[in-house]
């Protein structure tokens, strides 16, 4: 499954239980982010215990996008059906600064920033 915009690509590899983000994601609001929310929800429902969110190639994410990811983490916490593993890149500021906040929403999220 793949979501492609002018500045970004999001892929969902079902066999690896991994959602990967590429480019710059700066959409207007939660209705523009709906297709992404749908992919995340689907990935969670077929996760079989583990879901990986790989942001290492996402240069920018705006606060509307951070909102979407954060709310997804909250819904995963409520469902409590899968371990979330978040991969980040230490050379990209927003990841270094903001990804850690996901753990404050759910302490079971594992975050690896390299």
């Amino acid at each position, binding site marked *: 499954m793949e979501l492609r915009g002018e500045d970004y690509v999001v892929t969902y590899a079902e066999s690896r239980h991994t959602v990967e983000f590429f480019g710059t994601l*700066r959409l207007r609001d939660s209705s523009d982010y709906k297709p992404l929310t749908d992919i995340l929800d689907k990935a969670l429902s077929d996760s079989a215990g583990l879901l990986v969110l790989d942001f290492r190639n996402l240069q920018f994410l705006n606060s*509307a996008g951070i909102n979407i990811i954060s709310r997804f983490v909250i819904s995963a916490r409520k469902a409590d059906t899968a371990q979330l593993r978040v991969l980040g890149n230490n050379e990209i500021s927003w990841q270094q600064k903001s990804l850690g906040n996901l753990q404050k929403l759910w302490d079971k999220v594992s975050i690896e920033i390299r």
Partner: protein
Amino acid sequence: METTTTLGSWTEDAGENNLSDALLRLKAADIFQSWRRCSLTADFLARYYSYYFPYREKATDRISRETAENNISYILNELIENTAKYSDAADKSVEVTVRLRPSDIQFQVTNRVTEKRAEDFVRMAAELMEGNTEQQYLSKLEREVDSSGLGYLTMINDYGVTLGFKVEKSGDDLFSVAVQASMLWKEA
């Protein structure tokens, strides 16, 4: 509502000590109509100002070029997106100002809104300035709706930004809303 309201650490620009200034005046309608212009404008100014900063290997007392470009782009994009979402007069201008100062860099955006929206804005800004922004951030996310102010909270919590606001009656029943975000670029 008051003719002029200032909140947070609003500063009138004295100008004389600025190392650099830039001002872009855009038509509000342009950024409503083509959303990607927000990101484009932020990226342009971020790249432009990144040249003041050395590459990572040489950045000992200040943020590196890579960090500067990333941080400036994030902050400006948030500020410009807000003007695109909340301007009420498509024919009016949105102003984007950057001031490089001796130890910080200040971004300012100004746009025009109705009195109703100006009041909502002042209420939101006052809440932000009440402090405990970490808690405000987390509780906003836990609530089902209302994510307004989330961008400002990420700037404060994650980028160490200081905010200032000025809301002023501008004639023709509109109010001008100006937001300043200042980020330190010198590091100890």
